[in-house]
Structure formats: structure tokens, C-alpha cells
């Protein structure tokens, strides 16, 4: 009796959850980046 071929299917990868993208600014929203200030520094 022939051995039944055993086949192993690779474990299915669970689909990775979608990475939420950061919310996009709406019209009228403001995003302001403030430059770093210096307390004591070169040339100050």
C-alpha cells in the first residue's frame, strides 16, 4: 500500500491589520512647528 503523500500547507499568515494613517488636516486646520530656542549657545 502506497504511502499517502502527506502534504503540509504552510500556515497561513493572518492578514496584518491595516496601519491607520494619521488624520489629514482639514481645511482651516493649522500645524505650526516652532523652532528650538537657545538658553545658552555658541555665539549667544
Amino acid at each position, binding site marked *: 500500500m502506497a504511502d499517502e503523500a502527506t502534504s503540509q500547507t504552510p500556515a497561513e499568515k493572518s492578514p496584518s491589520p491595516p496601519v491607520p494613517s494619521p488624520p489629514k*488636516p*482639514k481645511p*482651516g*486646520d*493649522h*500645524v*505650526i*512647528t*516652532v*523652532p*528650538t*530656542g*537657545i*538658553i*545658552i*549657545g*555658541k555665539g549667544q
Partner: protein
Amino acid sequence: MAAGAWKVFNRAKKYIGNGTLSLSSTTFRLALATSAANFKTSASALPLIMRGSVTGFCVSTGDCPKVGFQLSGELWTNVSATGANAKILRFDTGDLTVVASTSAIANIKYAYIFLSGASATVEKLLCYSTLTTSQITSLAIGNTLTIQMNTSGVLRLS
């Protein structure tokens, strides 16, 4: 126009030096002010000391209180090396998003950071920034203003 860098109030430098204004504190707050704010009486003078001396703050019931917003993640740390080799130190906080949820916020021009205290008359001012040359006339209901701190921090001592 890009926002102006954080400028340290003159008296704050004294208080940082004598330990009255500890950058290691974790109770700093940020508030918004209009172009009418009295942060300076000349191009270079930054005479204010306490939050109670500030005029021209933005007021919007609930959304923009005089007492400002609690900052998160305040951190005074070395960034270039550790221990005795640390030559650059940084004061940093998390970003802050102000939401005009119930009423518009008018005439936003400045943001200022101060050390939280028992009352406005004892809360020491640290620094301020000119967020924009032409003030934001109205942050309408539903809109946000996000103030991002530079990756190099709010203040550096180098």
C-alpha cells in the same frame, strides 16, 4: 512665515539659574495670546515675569482658557552624551493640539509656556513664540491648531 523660535523671558533666565524655575518640573503649561499681548515693550525687552502680568491672551470659553493647556512629556535631558560628557541638554515637551470644539478662537499669534502654580501671580513665564506674523484671525469651530515642538526640543543649552 515660519514660526519664530522660542524666546526665553529675561527673568526666566535668572530663575532657571537660581533653581526657582526648574526645567525638571513636569507641570508646564502652554497658552495662546493675540497680537495685543504685552510680551515685549521693545524689540529685545522681555520684561514679564508671571502669568498674571500677561495681557492679550486668547479667550474662548472652554476651548482656550487663560490657564492654558497642560503639556505632556516634559523632559530635561542630555542629548549628545551621557553623564559628565553631556554637552547639549534639551528641554522638550510633547506636541499640543488645540481644538475649537465649542466656539471659535480669535486672533491667535503667540504661544507661551509657563510653570504651573497655585495662581497666575506665582506662575513663572518661561518662553514664548511668535507662531505667525499675521495672526490666525479665527480658528473656526471644528478646526485644530497643532503646535509641534521641533525635534531638537523646545530649548537647548549647548
